[in-house]
């Protein structure tokens, strides 16, 4: 299972966990499995049309999925997936 790095603003869904493990062959599957384990988290990451929200970046092994295959980007068990706000805040 890949390990998913959860940013502080979304840790309320993971009971404070910074890093969680979920299965899935690509990013879309990983997010679906993340949602079934931590209900509510997926809609913070994806918009109503199912696309990654404009201000959210997802990295698979340090590569932005926008420049790979987006939600179809393959995820290996050894990969680290990071969900990062595009901005730094105040």
């Amino acid at each position: 299972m890949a390990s998913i790095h959860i940013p502080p603003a979304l840790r309320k869904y993971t009971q404070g966990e910074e890093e969680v493990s979920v299965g899935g062959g690509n990013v879309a599957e990983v997010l679906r499995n993340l949602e079934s384990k931590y209900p509510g988290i997926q809609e913070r990451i994806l918009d109503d049309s199912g696309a990654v929200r404009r201000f959210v970046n997802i990295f698979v092994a340090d590569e932005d999925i926008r420049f790979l295959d987006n939600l179809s980007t393959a995820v290996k068990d050894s990969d680290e997936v990071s969900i990062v706000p595009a901005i730094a805040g105040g």
Partner: protein
Amino acid sequence: MNTVLQSPAPPAGAALALSLGKRSLRTPMGSVLDLVGNTPLVRLTRIEVECPGVQLWGKAEFCNPGGSVKDRAASRIIRDALARGDLRDGVRLLDSTSGNTGIAYSMVGAALGVPITLVMPENVSIPRKQITRTYGTELVFSDPMEGSDGAILLARKLATEYPDRYYYPNQYANDSNWLAHYDGTAMEIWAQTHGTVTHFVTGVGTSGTVIGTSRRLHELNPAIRCIAMQPDDAWHGLEGLKHIPSSLVPPIYDEQVLDETIWMPTDEGWDMSERLAREEALFVGHSSGANVAAALRIAKRCCAAGQEGVIVTVLCDRGERYFGPLVWEKHYVW
């Protein structure tokens, strides 16, 4: 007009002023720091058309020499610290910043010969890192996953560990921050609207702009509605703004000064930034978009109640500051 300005022997002052029509000529300045503040107020005619009887105005803070509203606070913070003797020889100014304050500190530091060290989350855009470094500023990076609060905590730690090396002004707790707007922004808005301003609204970052401006406007006329805008959620994309309920609360933030808070979704702010570029030819950042979106909400409310109004908000910075890393940079290093 260009012909007059480019002529080898400029005409006398009176003739030149005449050629500029109703606009008054700026006084020549001795330092870039004299260009901070006294920003234009620009009417948002194509946005306000939705609300007949209500005027919408934007304070063009992107006209500051460092490119953002943050020039005001940085300039006041550093000048006050020098006057108190906090920034003595051999001491560097150290603070945490997501970008605009860092650029402002860097500019003021270069102008006054004060060395600057900034702590910023690693994921601030590359252009911001490059701009601050160009002024000679030293950068220290904090964990990108921990956001601006992570930068605050690291700055505090460094300041505590090396008290002889650093002066830590802490923009979130520094009275010079809100005083810059109490003495500057608010008085300018009052004068530029000839005292007719009815509403002031702007986003909360350190809260210096909204608190300082609102405090003074309320003193000038308690009937002016002063409204803060915050992202509607901890998980947001309005750079520079803080969702206070989930953040370290800035000590200068004082809810007593505010009449109301508007909670702004990221998409509404981003959409308004794009609209401002297309319809008003104002290419401004997302926080400006969110500010105008909040101002438009108030305008619609006034309109629905059959009230007239003069609503002022802040155009914090220019949009090109946000090109990277969203679009142009492929690789991230941290």
